[in-house]
């Protein structure tokens, strides 16, 4: 998986259907080369998670995903002992009546086969791999501190087993929706990239590559409308994900030319708030009439 330059990365990502601009390609290249985690922020639906999937596919590595949520702790991110199986094992020893050494029996309990590897440990064990820490802003501050520890050394110490270190550090992608500011210490460890909504041409290309069944003409119309909608004042401006959904929805209805009726019927794919729906309806009215 030796990667020579940013252009090669962009090319490899394009092969998986992810279109990265120069800046993103450069940052990804640097993250791989400097072996640093990549922190990606941006509006929802701009392809932050898809980037990690793209990198994994492009480099042909397994993708291990850790979805963060409030209250997540180390046992859900790192490892846990499989308690019922340990008990079962003890009973089995008892039944076999090996009458053996207590210490030996105890030791056999803390074997790697009773270890439930959660995403972070799994990534360290399977590395090279891509570890996606999704929506890290949802987790608590303490969890950030824990991540920091793992990300700086790429190793985990399990008291009963010893230290698990990654032979090659995994490629780590963190995503955040900026519901809160991440801690500076964590940010310092990472390379930072802000993903913006793509321009017209790029977005058309994204729709074409992600949903090839949609015709060029429809894609162009859809993207044109969405880009103008982003400028109007909506509660939740549609992201690329919504553009894709909408284009696919229109395609399923057999639309070849965007008109008022078909767009009204498929509006649910594009806007998810009632207040927005009326605004968009109004804006569409003006755009498509003209």
């Amino acid at each position, binding site marked *: 998986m030796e990667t020579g330059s940013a252009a090669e990365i962009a090319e490899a990502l394009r092969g998986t259907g992810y279109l990265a601009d120069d800046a993103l390609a450069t940052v990804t290249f640097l993250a791989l080369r400097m072996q*640093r985690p990549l922190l990606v*922020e941006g509006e929802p639906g701009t392809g932050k998670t898809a980037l990690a999937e793209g990198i994994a596919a492009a480099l042909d590595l397994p993708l291990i995903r850790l979805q963060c949520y409030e*209250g997540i702790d180390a046992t859900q991110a790192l490892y846990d002992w499989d308690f019922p199986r340990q008990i079962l094992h003890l009973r089995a020893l008892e039944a076999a009546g090996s009458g053996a050494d207590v210490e030996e029996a105890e030791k056999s309990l803390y074997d790697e086969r009773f270890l439930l590897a959660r995403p972070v440990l799994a990534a360290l064990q399977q590395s090279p791999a891509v570890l996606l820490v999704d929506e890290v802003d949802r987790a608590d501050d303490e969890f950030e501190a824990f991540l920091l520890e793992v990300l700086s050394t790429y190793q985990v110490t399990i008291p009963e087993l010893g230290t698990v270190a990654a032979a090659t550090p995994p490629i780590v992608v963190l995503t955040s929706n900026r519901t*809160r500011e991440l801690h500076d210490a964590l940010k*310092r460890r990472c390379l*930072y990239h802000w993903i913006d909504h793509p321009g017209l041409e790029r977005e058309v290309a994204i729709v074409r590559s992600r949903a090839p069944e949609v015709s060029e003409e429809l894609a162009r119309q859809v993207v044109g409308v969405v880009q103008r909608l982003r400028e109007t004042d909506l*509660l939740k401006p549609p992201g690329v994900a919504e553009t894709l959904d909408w284009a696919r929805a229109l395609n399923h209805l057999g639309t070849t030319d965007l008109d008022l009726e078909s767009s009204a019927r498929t509006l649910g794919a594009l806007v998810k708030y009632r207040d927005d729906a009326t605004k968009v309806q109004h804006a569409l009215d003006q755009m498509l009439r003209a």
Partner: protein
Amino acid sequence: MKHAPDEVLLGFTRALRAAGVPVTQDRTHGYLAAVAIVGLDDARAAYDAGRATLCASPDDLARYDQIYEAYFNGRDGLPRARQAEAGVPSFSGMPISEESLDVVGDDADVDTVRAMASDVEVLRHRDIGELTAAEKHRLSTLFAGLRPRHPQRRTSRHERWHRGSVDASRTLRASLRRMGEPGEIAWRRRGHRPRRVVLLIDVSGSMSAYADALLRLAHRMTQAGPVETFTIGTRLTHVTRALRGRDAERALIAAGETVPDWSGGTRLGETLQMFLERWGRRGLARGAVVVVFSDGWERGDATLLASQMASLRRVAHRVVWVNPHRGKAGYEPVQQGVLAVLPHCDEFLAGHSLATYAELLEVVARA
């Protein structure tokens, strides 16, 4: 005279730091390493490398672009200083109501008379807007006496407790440990965590007399638990980080440097909308206690303010509106803005004196 490339790059990081981007030593190292990898000759890639290694938020990115332009493209204009924007003290749309005229008229004699009785208890109940500088200074020391308690919310996770409901899994685990021998029953209850509090402080011209005290209050509350503070006026500014410092004076200075629109006009509706879009709806205000400190003097359209408040209330756990003028005798909520927000508030409080702030803290703690 030509400089060595690393000197030039280091100089750039210094310029960035001077412009307010928090560039630390290790970031600088990362930057040099990254540029070495992509190569100095590729200007575009070097630019991207800097953005990735030196910046940490969208605000930083904007500043980075400015400095980059000025530093490497050799334009004559130096980057704009951050505080350059002088607030335009315009009160054009502000309705001058009778009581506000009264206040202005009374001011002179009230000050001289009351300055004599500066007992602590009196000071606690005095309108901060009418204090002299010396009294304000005395009052500022009294803020340390406020005891903010944080509101709690129940979490979906349980915690062990000596009564409550039966904790089946822990009981069973304990009994398994004794090879199936039944034993003591374990109990649990729903966990508790501090609920987030969001403060939106109006720093427009009409509120300028209270801005200092409100920031002090915000600082005090920030010390107690998870509080996010924004100032609103013509712009929305996130000042939480500035207020995190332990020392109140320093925190206030830092906050003052962060806010670009002191004593400007008010566009409450628009800034509230910006808050909801950028922060609130994404999660910051969800389930939070939101306290808005404002007099509701709106320059813009009050219907926008009303719709944004309705939207805020749908997202937040409790919305508290604090209006310093409410504590004045004979106050009637007549301003357009206040009328627009009243239906969407859970509480409408006065906020003109230290005593009323203590009341506010009580309301927030019970929310």
